[in-house]
């Protein structure tokens, strides 16, 4: 695995077409996926293309402290952040890690649940939940609109299955922040589904 990667890297540095092709096949979907959670559909392609340019230029300096995949994703995250910053759309880390009031308000002062306890959902599996078209659409929308680092951590962790360590590396945030971001993102999903279960309406409408 390690040797194969080293081999691919040398061939990329020599700018072999076949190596480009192989690398794109291997990493493009993961990169697009991450870019998408930062900047949405519209700009994901552009961000990933910029990321490839930066990566190929910087590759001779790649030190193999992480895997090529993690390194590429880190470049994607940086390109995406730069883009959002330019457009003044970068959400602050404080705002993204702030406590979710609509959940924390449901606990009373002694730390127990108040009157609004979690309602029982009528589903036992994600598949069952998503079989309801309106809820599926609602979840798509919610995930699409999560603050960028919440969306990115959720994407890397749940959809792409990366370890917390890799995520810290890719997003350049501390492990405790990764944990908080995941916590916030998951609770948003939880609250939105609960809202749907109670009212039949989407939380984002």
């Amino acid at each position, binding site marked *: 695995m390690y040797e194969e990667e080293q081999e691919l890297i040398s061939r990329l540095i020599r*700018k072999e077409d076949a190596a480009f092709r192989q690398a794109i096949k291997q990493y493009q979907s993961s990169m697009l996926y991450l870019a998408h959670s930062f900047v949405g559909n519209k700009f994901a392609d552009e961000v990933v293309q910029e990321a490839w340019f930066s990566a190929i230029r910087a590759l001779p300096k790649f030190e193999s402290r992480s895997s090529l995949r993690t390194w590429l994703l880190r470049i994607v995250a940086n390109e995406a952040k730069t883009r959002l910053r330019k457009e003044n759309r970068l959400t602050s880390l404080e705002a993204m890690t702030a406590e979710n009031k609509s959940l924390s308000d449901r606990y009373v002062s002694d730390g127990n649940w108040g009157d609004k306890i979690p309602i029982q959902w009528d589903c036992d599996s994600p598949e069952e939940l998503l079989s309801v078209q309106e809820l599926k659409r609602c979840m798509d929308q919610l995930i699409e609109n999560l603050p960028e680092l919440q969306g990115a951590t959720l994407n890397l962790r749940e959809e792409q299955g990366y370890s917390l360590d890799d995520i810290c590396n890719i997003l350049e945030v501390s492990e405790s922040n990764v*944990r908080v971001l995941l916590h916030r993102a998951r609770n948003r999903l939880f609250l939105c589904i609960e809202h749907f279960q109670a009212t039949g309406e989407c939380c984002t409408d």
Partner: protein
Amino acid sequence: MITCKDVSDTASDYLDGPTTLLQRFSLRLHLIMCVKCRRYMRQLKLASGLAKKITVPFEPSDEEIEFLVQKLRALT
């Protein structure tokens, strides 16, 4: 004894695997006794697993790959 709010604060960590033994123990003990948090925990896990299922495929087409290869080749 940890409170329901404490459960909420550590629930997500728990889903990501290794937390400290003490944390796991106190969380489990609380869950045995508290039906509300049991429900919250189960449904948080369900909500979180749902993200996996919303996957949009992003496989690049052959044309897209060739287009990008051209661009990378042209890099100086």
